[in-house]
């Protein structure tokens, strides 16, 4: 995919951007750079084009190079197009001990791509990331903004099938575990009533 020439916020995102900028004192608009880059990335299909970074630079009165520096420093900004579903497999020690290699292998097998690659249909990009901070439910696969937890090879394949069908399952543990409760259910505090599921949402 070639670099698009232009980028501009949608009216809704422009309002959001203004609200972000307004959080900082006059002359400190540059502080909003990460928030605006994130907005831009979301609007731009999950990646930041150079035009998008130039647009943010102009909006914040920053030299473009300063925005490029921020954009290249933070790994959550993607500087090349990504698939509609960005699969971020955590392979840091706890996830690895709990079988992240199977998760990665399942993705690779199912999608026919390696780490850092995108499927030809543009649906999936697979990357390896450092600790996602949900070790209690390891291993984790992050799909766009959602965490899928307690995965193994078959569960990962099932997840990918569901995503392909456009029927993403609810995020969270795929084995029905609630939060970080023990796998076999609560072992303490039995007398405390579990909150109704409706309240959780």
């Amino acid at each position: 995919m070639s670099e698009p020439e232009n980028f501009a916020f949608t009216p809704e995102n422009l309002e959001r951007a203004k609200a972000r900028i307004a959080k900082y004192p006059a002359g400190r608009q540059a502080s909003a750079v990460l928030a605006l880059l994130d907005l831009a990335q979301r609007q731009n299909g999950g990646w930041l084009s150079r035009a998008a970074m130039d647009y943010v630079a102009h909006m914040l009165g920053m030299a473009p190079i300063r925005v490029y520096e921020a954009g290249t420093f933070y790994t959550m900004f993607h500087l090349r197009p990504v698939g509609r579903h960005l699969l971020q497999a955590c392979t840091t020690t706890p996830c690895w001990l709990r079988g992240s290699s199977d998760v990665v292998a399942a993705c690779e097998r199912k999608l026919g791509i390696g780490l850092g690659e995108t499927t030809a249909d543009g649906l999936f990009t697979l990357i390896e990331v450092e600790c996602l901070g949900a070790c209690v439910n390891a291993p984790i696969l992050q799909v766009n903004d959602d965490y899928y937890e307690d995965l193994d090879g078959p569960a990962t394949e099932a997840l990918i099938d569901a995503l392909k069908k456009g029927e993403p399952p609810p995020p969270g543990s795929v084995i029905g575990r609630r939060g970080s409760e023990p796998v076999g259910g609560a072992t303490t505090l039995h007398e405390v009533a579990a909150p109704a599921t409706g309240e959780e949402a």
Partner: protein
Amino acid sequence: MTDPIRFFLDGAEVEARPGETIWQVANRQGIEIPHLCWLPKPGYRADGNCRACMVEIEGERVLAASCIRKPSAGMRVKTASERARFSRQMVFELLLADQPRRDAAHDPGSRFWQWADRLDLSESRFPRHGAPAPDRSHPAIAVHLDACIECTLCVRACREVQVNDVIGMKGRGYHEKIVFDFDDPMGRSTCVACGECVQACPTGALMPASLVDVNGLYAHAPDREVDSVCPYCGVGCQLTYKIREDRIVAVAGREGPSNQGRLCVKGRYGFDYVHHPDRLTEPLIRKEGVAKGNVAIDPGNPYTHFRKASWEEALDAAAAGLKRIRDAKGPKALAGFGSAKGSNEEAYLFQKLVRTGFGSNNVDHCTRLCHASSVAALMEGIGSGAVTAPFTAAMEAEVIIVIGARPTQNHPVAATFFKEAAKQGKTLIVMDPRGQALARHATLMLRFKPGRDVALLNALLYTIIKEGLFDKQYVAAHTQDFEKLAEHIRDYPPEKMAAICGIDAETLRHVARTYARARAAIIFWGMGISQHVHGTDNARCLIALALITGQIGRRGTGLHPLRGQNNVQGASDAGLIPMLYPDYQSVEDPGVRQKFEALWGKSLDPKRGLTVVEIMDAVHRGEITGMVIMGENPAMSDPDVAHARAALAQLEHLVVQDIFLTETAKYADVVLPASAWPEKDGTVSNTNRQVQMGRAALPLPGNARQDLWIIEEIARRIGLPWSYGHPRAVFAEMKEAMPSLNGITWERLLRESSVTYPCDSETSAGHEIVFADGFPTPSGRGRLVPAAIVPPAEEPDGEYPFVLTTGRQLEHWHTGAITRRAQVLDEIEPEATASFAPSELRRLGVAAGERVRVSTRRGAIELKARADSGVAPGMVFIPFCYAEAAANLLTNPQLDPFGKIPEYKYCAARVEPVAAKAAAE
């Protein structure tokens, strides 16, 4: 001011001045501490990242970076403890691991290797990582990141010193990398090639391309250095030529008062023109029977139209023609154009040659085409044509106005100070019909309608007077004719002016209030103000703004017309002006004339002479038939240049003294090969009134001679018994004629390189800021001169619907005679282009890069179209440096009535696409 801090450095009690770091105190004490990411030069901030300068502080757990750590009272610092030395040694050994081997180094004499030597390090025990590929995409700068230690000096050079914001650090951790823009090849990035990063780099990762071979190995090592001044713009940057076998191989910035070590692409990489094969090396005489008028002569082979002559023959022929015309038709049949690119001494001798040898005041130079109107207004308003404060005063201002000037292109080093000031939070207001690079740094950018300066400025004056924001005390004490101005300005309310100038009334009022209320405000302007038929009126408005608000004569205030040529200030001071003797003394004042008649031992013409464009008109009328042109190129630079060229062709006798066969020299009868700036000794005066010493660095090529010698030889042959010999002797005579040179001697300039005038004595520094208390006018007061709206001389119409404006580019100088022969500069900007708004190109159905034909009532040229969002729709911009598409074939020769400056910035034009077939024919 806080008190000095007493602490202990290696056991001895020392004192730190406020703000000083441990490294600075140690350095002052003669204690050497290695350093890489710290560059003790003006404008460079310590960053403390490379850890090469670690010292031990008693009672502290960890070592401290001495370049950034400030001492506190009683602190005990050990610079040479075993722990500190071991740590520094280890830093160098780690860095050394990834460096190219010294015998394959890009710069084996880099600061890194110098320190490694002093630490006795040549090998590293650590494994080497893979080396990044070289980037040789830029014609002037070689990038070899295998030597990069990521000390970020280049980032600070680019971002904080020159404020260009091109270099940055990409990625994080192990993947960190110095990048240009978005990791673009340097040659395709937005880099303006100022070379500041190259000068700052401590390892040779960034090198002048001229000092490394194709394999990245160090080559062409300089064998000597000469300190001098840059020959390009009026900023007057001091520099050091690095020379190998009598060729300039590199240039470094020197810490002069106007540049503090900085240079731009021209000053740093634009010197090989001196060695270009087109250099004139033999005197030439036009062949018998070869008609004038053909500009298609190959400058590298003039022998199609000229023949080689001995100096004796050429000088005799040059002088005989002048003498014949003078004696037969009278002194007024001769005229001379001097040059603002030569030295003060040359300018002075040239005007003396015309005034005492030819016998008239028909002497002028290119100041007529740049700031003549500014000078006319300044002389009338405040009695002095020079700046009231240096451009560095921007750093002390609260509000900075830049109007009709594009300093990032034309005064790049001055622009660094403006950008820096803006970064520090000062209010920078840029006013220019075209968008420009400075706008990104500006608090406000006013893109007003071209040619509507007076409307804009009068609206500001209206607001300041109407709202009582003027400085009543200052106006009462130091100005005259305020009532007249106040009366006049009533007709110019912002609401009414907004429709004319295209800037809304509220913005106009805001700018007026901001300027008037500032503690200190300064105004800079350029050709966008002066090159109009209302150029003098434009400048009058600026002067009035400063006078009624008292924004003049104090620190951070003033009026500063940014002077163009490196010595346009000096050439004007030296009297290369038809109505003025040296130091702006009127030729029509009998007392002054008597003084000069006594000094020069000749009776002088009591009438003012003709100006540049007037001289060309007089040639057409047959009144002037002989000319000497030294280092100027009117066949490119005059407006409606076809008219000027016809005049040159019509001359009975034309002597041209230059370093190349310029378009003008192609019309000559006698061509005298002269000296380039790096080949001569002489002084020049920059826009800041700093008189600076230029030093000869190279021998003259072939049979070329010093300009001063040539002038003197012509003088002798037309009856003037001159024998100056050396510029020193000319300078001594200039001092007799010019009180402005008080306190400045040749010896002092040799010693100090730069002295600002006016200067009270040989031992005191000059006055940077003048007119603290009144003005050198007859009344001692600044005169307020109202200006009415005069429209441009030629407005667009149905036939010629575009506004054509002309100017310069960063890479090229004036008519391109020298810069187009500088390889790097010509490679960056190799051909003529006409810039349009992208929307305008779409409307014309022309893609960027396709050819267009631009025509006016005076001529037509064909050139490539360029998209530039800075150009307003309905406008076309063409730089005037390209002989193959000379913009001045198009420009309007209408003159400002006071400054006699032509309207280069505005005329009506038509644009048509050129069919591909026609272009191929």
